[in-house]
């Protein structure tokens, strides 16, 4: 009987651990591996190591892009086997990290048999004839050409709430609708800073016109709304007015490459008004490198955008965490202009047209606004549905514990393809969750942090199993045992996705972690800490609590939970801090899982009854 009970509890814990396994939350595939060599090692030594890899594993490591040399960022073709081999090898000492490259996955729900998976792949490009197009790595990174094969944003109006827009030569063929200058209170919303024109260029630069650069939704119309003065600042009141103006004048996308200030109900209401009128509102996450997007990106119904560099990494300046819904190229000019986003704008001193490379989340937001216009042009109009298309089609980033990338990296081709399929089912559960998370702009839920639906199903299933066990075995389910099971196997996982603005997220990661995960929860690492991922904590708990009739069951429960968590990690992804992945980690985890199970069994002495 006791045996059945232990096995039953083991299975129960296993269910929890499997459902909580992050690998299932964002399962991705990859066919190449990124190696980031340590800067302090010197180029010659790194080259030696690169050659050693080539010889030892019969692969050809290559610099990721022409921007990767300073960073020593290499990629090699390979699978999990090679990844683990590399991690185990001597080479890992010379690297900052070795990890899978760009884990892309179209969510299963969106592939639901309507079209075959191959159509989600970029199909045939059509490069425009703009001579500087080859320098626009950002457009290449979001797979724009396959998106253009379907739509170029025709029929959609994008409002650019910024420093105004000047009709520089490479905007001559772009369509404009009437806007307004809220700073100078006049009809003509010319730019006197250069920022707004640059942002407008990313959205709808005249393309295939034989001059300059390209823009994303170049058949869309631009609505210039000037709210920021020549110095680049403006008041919340003007911005709120501009949002209402856009909504009242048939704009269906708003881009706000601006931020700062405090909470303002005028602005929040203006955004809610625009959302209700069917406008997709997009804003930059901010450039202070802090944990949480700034206003207006953090308001309800605003898509907050973080900035990526040319290699797809989070830029050092980009805000992250709460309020970041998606990431897109924002550029990094710290190593030269080639790393920035190139558009046609004006020199504010002379008013002359220039092609300038800027960096910032200001540059990332208009990428999303441009793709939102493509999505609307492809037939998906509702702002919630557009957001779903953008976030579901984004390239998922695995192990994004700090939410640096939101739902992933913007992908124009995948977004347009998903929109054309026309079967957008905005999950009611997520709508409920998000709207409740957005009851006020003080807290935020990262829906992608954990796979919630399978988890809820597993929790329900576990309760059914518990009910089943109870009807067979004469024991009363005790809270101490259940608490032990949860703490041991999964922790209060849902807390991992909860953020309070301007507050560190690690307390939630700690509460949302199981006992084995505790040792790496503060750093936000997905690798397990071998100290906490061992028999140590359950052993201590049992030693301390064995004498207590009720709390003893907490210790037994957690011992079983930890056993299951470790066994699951050993089976799916044995990665330990300091040790890495592979056989050593796997054996370590299995041995400790068995020890935990043995401890639990020993502690359930025959004369004991669960109270």
């Amino acid at each position, binding site marked *: 009987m006791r045996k059945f009970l232990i096995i039953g509890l083991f299975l129960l814990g296993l269910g929890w651990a499997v459902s909580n396994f992050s690998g299932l939350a964002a399962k991705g595939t990859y066919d190449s591996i990124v190696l980031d060599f340590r800067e302090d090692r010197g180029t010659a030594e790194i080259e030696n190591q690169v050659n050693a890899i080539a010889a030892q594993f019969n692969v050809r490591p290559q610099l990721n892009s022409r921007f990767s040399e300073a960073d020593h960022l290499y990629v090699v073709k390979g699978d999990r086997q090679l990844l683990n081999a590399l991690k185990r090898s001597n080479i890992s000492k010379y690297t900052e990290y070795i990890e899978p490259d760009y884990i892309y996955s179209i969510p299963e729900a969106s592939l639901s048999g309507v079209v075959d998976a191959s159509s989600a792949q970029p199909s045939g490009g059509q490069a425009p004839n703009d001579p500087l197009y080859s320098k626009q790595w950002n457009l290449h990174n979001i797979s724009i050409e396959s998106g253009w094969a379907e739509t170029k944003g025709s029929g959609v109006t994008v409002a650019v709430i*910024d*420093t105004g827009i000047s009709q520089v030569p490479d905007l001559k063929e772009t369509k404009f609708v009437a806007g307004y200058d809220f700073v100078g209170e006049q009809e003509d919303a010319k730019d006197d*800073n*250069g*920022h707004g024109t*640059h942002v407008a260029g990313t959205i709808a630069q005249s393309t295939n016109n034989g001059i300059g650069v390209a823009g994303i939704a170049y058949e869309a119309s631009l609505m210039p709304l000037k709210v*920021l003065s020549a*110095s*680049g*600042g*403006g*008041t*919340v*009141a003007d*911005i709120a007015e501009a949002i209402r103006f856009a909504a009242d004048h048939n704009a269906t996308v708003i881009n706000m*490459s*601006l*931020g*700062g*200030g*405090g909470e*303002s109900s005028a602005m929040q209401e203006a955004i809610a008004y625009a959302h209700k009128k069917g406008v997709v509102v997009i804003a*930059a996450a*901010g*450039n*202070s490198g802090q944990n949480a997007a*700034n*206003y*207006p990106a953090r308001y309800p119904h605003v898509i907050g955008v973080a900035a990526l560099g040319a290699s797809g990494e989070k830029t050092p*300046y980009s*805000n992250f965490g709460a309020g970041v819904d998606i990431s897109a190229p924002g550029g990094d*000019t*710290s190593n030269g202009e080639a790393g920035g986003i190139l558009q046609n704008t004006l020199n*504010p001193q002379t008013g002359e047209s220039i092609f*300038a490379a*800027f*960096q*910032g*989340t*200001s540059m990332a937001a208009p990428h999303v606004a441009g793709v939102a216009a493509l999505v609307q042009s492809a037939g998906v109009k509702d702002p919630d549905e557009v957001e779903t298309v953008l976030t579901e089609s984004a390239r998922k980033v695995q192990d994004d514990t700090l939410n640096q990338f939101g739902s992933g990296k913007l992908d124009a081709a995948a977004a347009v393809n998903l929109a054309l399929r026309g079967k957008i089912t905005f999950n009611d559960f997520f709508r409920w969750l998000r709207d409740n998370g957005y009851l006020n702009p003080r807290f935020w839920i990262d829906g992608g942090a954990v796979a919630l639906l399978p988890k809820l199903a597993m929790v329900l299933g576990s309760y059914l199993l518990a009910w089943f066990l109870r009807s067979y075995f004469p024991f009363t389910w005790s809270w101490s045992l259940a608490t032990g099971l949860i703490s041991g196997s999964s922790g209060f996982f849902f807390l991992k996705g909860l953020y309070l603005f301007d507050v560190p997220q690690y307390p939630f990661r700690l509460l949302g972690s199981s006992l084995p995960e505790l040792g790496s929860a503060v750093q936000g690492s997905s690798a397990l800490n071998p100290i906490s991922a061992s028999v140590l904590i359950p052993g201590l708990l049992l030693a301390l609590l064995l004498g207590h009739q009720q709390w003893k069951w907490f210790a037994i429960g957690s011992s079983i939970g930890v056993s299951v968590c470790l066994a699951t990690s050993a089976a799916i992804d044995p990665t330990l801090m300091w040790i890495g992945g592979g056989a050593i980690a796997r054996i370590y985890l299995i041995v400790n899982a068995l020890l935990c199970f043995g401890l639990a069994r020993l502690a359930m002495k025959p004369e004991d009854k669960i109270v």
Partner: protein
Amino acid sequence: MTVTGVIQHKGFGTGTWALDAEDGKSYELHKPPSELQKKGLKVEIDGEIRDDVMTIAMIGPVLEVKTFKVL
């Protein structure tokens, strides 16, 4: 409020003047006088945080300079 720090020029958009304060925070200077537009200048600024202003630089709180002292 009074903040002490070093003037910096940050490369967002066409560039913005900032104060990297001693406490590690960065402030965006709102319409700084031309005497303050000098990289590396150590200053003490008496000013006001403009919570009602949003900017393209988004590097931190917006500080409107009232008076300043070069250190």
